[in-house]
């Protein structure tokens, strides 16, 4: 009991520090410093409390931006939907005007425990076009105080004897209109042990209870933070989608990585296309939080097939092709996923599968692997008109052998919209449609 009181009191002190005049927000990469609790007084003096948030950008020295980010923001239509991020650092001002009382040294002799924890405060507030710095500061301080309360709750909940778990905030982007939400999780506790907490959150935010929104892998990736692994994410977002008469566009939901020939120093040119498509699918399930397994290598994929008895041991290390059935088997064995197989006896029939594909992207929203003839591809979406039957397929081509250059990939159609004549009209095709597990 005493312990909990001490912890609560410490958090109370922290909260009052955040609300005090010595709390300072320093804008990263710029000379701007704001005192949020002094009516948003700021330096340099050109910045006043009524300066608009978006005007802050002129004070920030932009670093060299990722090529992908820069290219997409140049397109006029995209400009309004790209949110821009301003990073701030929380600092404490240690100087203050006098009068001062000289320091005291206090020595306490008392057997006790000493705890030192660095609390990783991380808040996000979203501001509108007409919001001023003063508004943003009020929201930020409110968010910081609230986060400290959440951290206090999580710390007290997860205290066992003398062990303490550090609380850490994670941001999630929920579907409109809820937007960005921050949840405090205890460090080191895996997702599997936080089911009850997630159930509560789903209820609180009225989210469906059959797909995850709050797993750690679902954490929102801020647009100004590059991915460290170097793969491109969602290259299809750089494309303009076709408009068909009475047609609608049905796309993959969530985030996937583009896997293709020659990546990871594996020369699979000519034989690895289905493997790459499978990797793209695995990356989707990992980034949506369904699995924690990293994307499997060619050898791991082959080993999985040997393990289920589908192939001989000599298969591992070979350059043999795989098809949709093998993809289904690997998804099941390595990731525990079920997939549906769709069979068309002739490529020409694919044009009539608009409804099924549209439904798939609506309900499951997972990337589809299609294999037939001598090629494998990934289908990321369809544009389909119910009335005219017109159809286009959004294809991610694993046969690309170049570098991760978004401009080249989109210009040359390695990720692009194709018509029904893209398919070999006489060959038969198998499609593997992975299904989302119904978990949160």
């Amino acid at each position, binding site marked *: 009991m005493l312990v909990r009181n001490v912890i609560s009191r410490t958090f109370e002190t922290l909260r*009052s520090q*955040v609300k*005090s005049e010595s709390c300072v*927000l320093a804008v990263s990469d710029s000379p701007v410093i704001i005192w949020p609790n002094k009516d948003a007084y700021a330096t340099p003096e050109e910045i006043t409390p009524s300066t608009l948030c978006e005007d802050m950008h002129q004070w920030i020295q932009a670093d060299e931006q990722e090529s992908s980010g820069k290219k997409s923001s140049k397109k006029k239509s995209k400009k309004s939907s790209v949110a821009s991020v*301003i990073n701030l650092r929380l600092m404490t001002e*240690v*100087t203050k005007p006098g009068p001062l009382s000289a320091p005291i040294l206090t020595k306490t002799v008392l057997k006790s425990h*000493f705890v030192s924890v660095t609390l990783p405060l991380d808040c996000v507030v979203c501001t509108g076009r007409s919001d001023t710095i003063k508004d943003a500061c009020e929201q930020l301080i409110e968010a*910081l105080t609230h986060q400290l309360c959440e951290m206090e709750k999580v710390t007290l909940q997860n205290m066992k004897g003398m062990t303490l778990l550090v609380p850490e905030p994670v941001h999630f982007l929920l579907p409109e209109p809820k937007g960005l939400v921050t949840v405090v999780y205890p460090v080191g506790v895996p997702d599997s042990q936080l089911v009850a907490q997630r159930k509560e959150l789903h209820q609180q935010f009225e989210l469906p209870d059959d797909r995850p929104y709050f797993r750690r892998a679902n954490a929102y990736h801020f647009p100004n933070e590059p991915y460290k692994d170097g793969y491109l994410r969602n290259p299809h977002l750089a494309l303009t989608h076709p408009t068909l008469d009475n047609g609608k566009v049905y796309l993959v939901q969530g985030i996937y990585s583009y896997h293709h020939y020659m990546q990871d120093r594996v020369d699979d040119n000519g034989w690895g296309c289905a493997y790459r498509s499978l990797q793209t699918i695995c990356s989707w399930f990992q980034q949506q939080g369904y699995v924690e397994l990293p994307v499997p290598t060619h050898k791991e994929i082959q080993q999985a097939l040997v393990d289920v008895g589908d192939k001989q041991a000599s298969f591992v290390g070979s350059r043999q092709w795989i098809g949709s059935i093998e993809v289904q088997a690997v998804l099941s064995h390595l990731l525990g996923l079920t997939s549906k197989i769709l069979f068309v006896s002739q490529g020409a029939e694919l044009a009539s599968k608009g409804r099924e594909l549209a439904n798939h992207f609506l309900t499951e929203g997972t990337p589809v692997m299609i294999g037939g003839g001598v090629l494998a591809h990934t289908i990321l979406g369809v544009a389909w008109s119910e009335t005219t039957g017109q159809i286009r397929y959004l294809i991610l081509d694993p046969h690309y052998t170049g570098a991760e250059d978004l401009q080249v990939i989109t210009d040359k159609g390695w990720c692009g919209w194709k018509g029904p004549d893209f398919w070999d009209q006489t060959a038969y095709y198998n499609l593997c449609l992975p299904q989302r597990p119904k978990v949160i």
Partner: protein
Amino acid sequence: MLTISIPSHLLRHRRATEICQCIFIFFWSADEPLDLSKLPAFLVEVLATVLLLLNIFHEIMGRGYIVQDDVEGYLSKLCEQKADPVTGLLIGQSSTQRDFVVMAIRTPQKEESAAAARNSVDKEWVTEHARQVSRMLPGGLSVVGVFIITDADAKDALTTLRQLLFAVENLISSEHLWDPADDDVTDCVTLHINPKTRKTVCRTFDIKDPKSVAKPADWKYQSGLCSSWATVSCSLNVDMLLPLPNNRTSTGNMEECLKEGLKAWAHQIESGLCLIDGKRLPEDSELTVGQRRNVRQTYTAQLLITTENKRLTDVIEQCGGSVSVTGAIHSRAYLHSNKPKARLAEKLLKRDVVSTVATRVQMMLEELLASDQESKGSCRDKQQKELFCLPHRIFCPLKVSGPLCVCDYQFSDEGLSEVTERLKEMLDIDAAEEDLDTRQEMTFEITGCDITPEPTQEKVEAPEHKKNYIGVAMATAVALLATAASMLYLNDI
């Protein structure tokens, strides 16, 4: 109109100014551009060549020290004393641009010294004096060299001076809690004066290099040296909380813990953001931009700190207690008047902040150790809480015109007369009690009851929640609060 601006480091060299004055009839100052349109072209060429050559010779010619003219009188008086040798310290500021000496202080007499000992130099005594003096200098002022007044052989004198210089500087820098910076000047000066002939020999040594050889240096007196020096100051809150190891809570252990804690705190201060007069100045900009020259300038600084970016190890450990230092201090640094850079102001002020706190803690510990506090406080099981008032800082202006002050620390049980005594003994300054500036810090009144710092409460209105986010989103990325506030005590149950 043709103008040449002469690099100021050349003009501090006496020969350069002499040569230039030979060529030109009219007087000009180092900071103003030279109007050469009135001269024939060939003279301009000659001047340019001369300056180029001097630039090359600059390194060989060595540093030039500009010295407050009061020092000349002080050293003269020392020459007239019977004692030989007389040693002492030279106080001033060295920067990459210029070197200044504002004060000379003779080594105090040792009372019990025998007649024989009086004629030799006691290295330990000189270095201990230097250590004490160093504590009494605010930021920007430091021991830049040593002097000796003796009619001994010049070579012997130089050897002695060299030994003293290295001993003094090494001791002083070993007590620093900060790492040396790349732009620190490591040359220090030695001055040998022959009391009979009054001949002065001035040399510099690079104290970073133990094998350094003497380089010639210029020693030039000037009046009104410090009249337009700038002062940067701030008042700073200190809030440190450190654990004491289990079962070892003696003063000696407390000293260890405090040293470590001070080092970590010094790091925080060093990497903090510094605002001068409310603005964050670019590092290479000059402090005095836009100010009229020869007007006394004072600047107020603000320091913003954050916990280090790398996560400190989170720890839970058993401890035998704690020691905390809380309160506020006044910190000050002086800057020479020759276009000082903002970077220098920040560096000197931060160093003064760190050293004033460290000095006071050290002084308190020395008091405790001396007054036999050891016997108490170890192995007791009962809870004990002891409060010690750290001495507070008093400033004393130097007689030279200008803002310069030295400082001293007054314990709560001392009177001002003790301060003036120390100023006389250590710094050879005659100060009256009325001269002392005691207003910068006040003693904390201990009334015997528990002192808990009041957190400042501010009213926060609940903002309306705005849900639309078309446009701009602001994110606070990994913000860490000061560790002092996130420490918890768990009592053994």
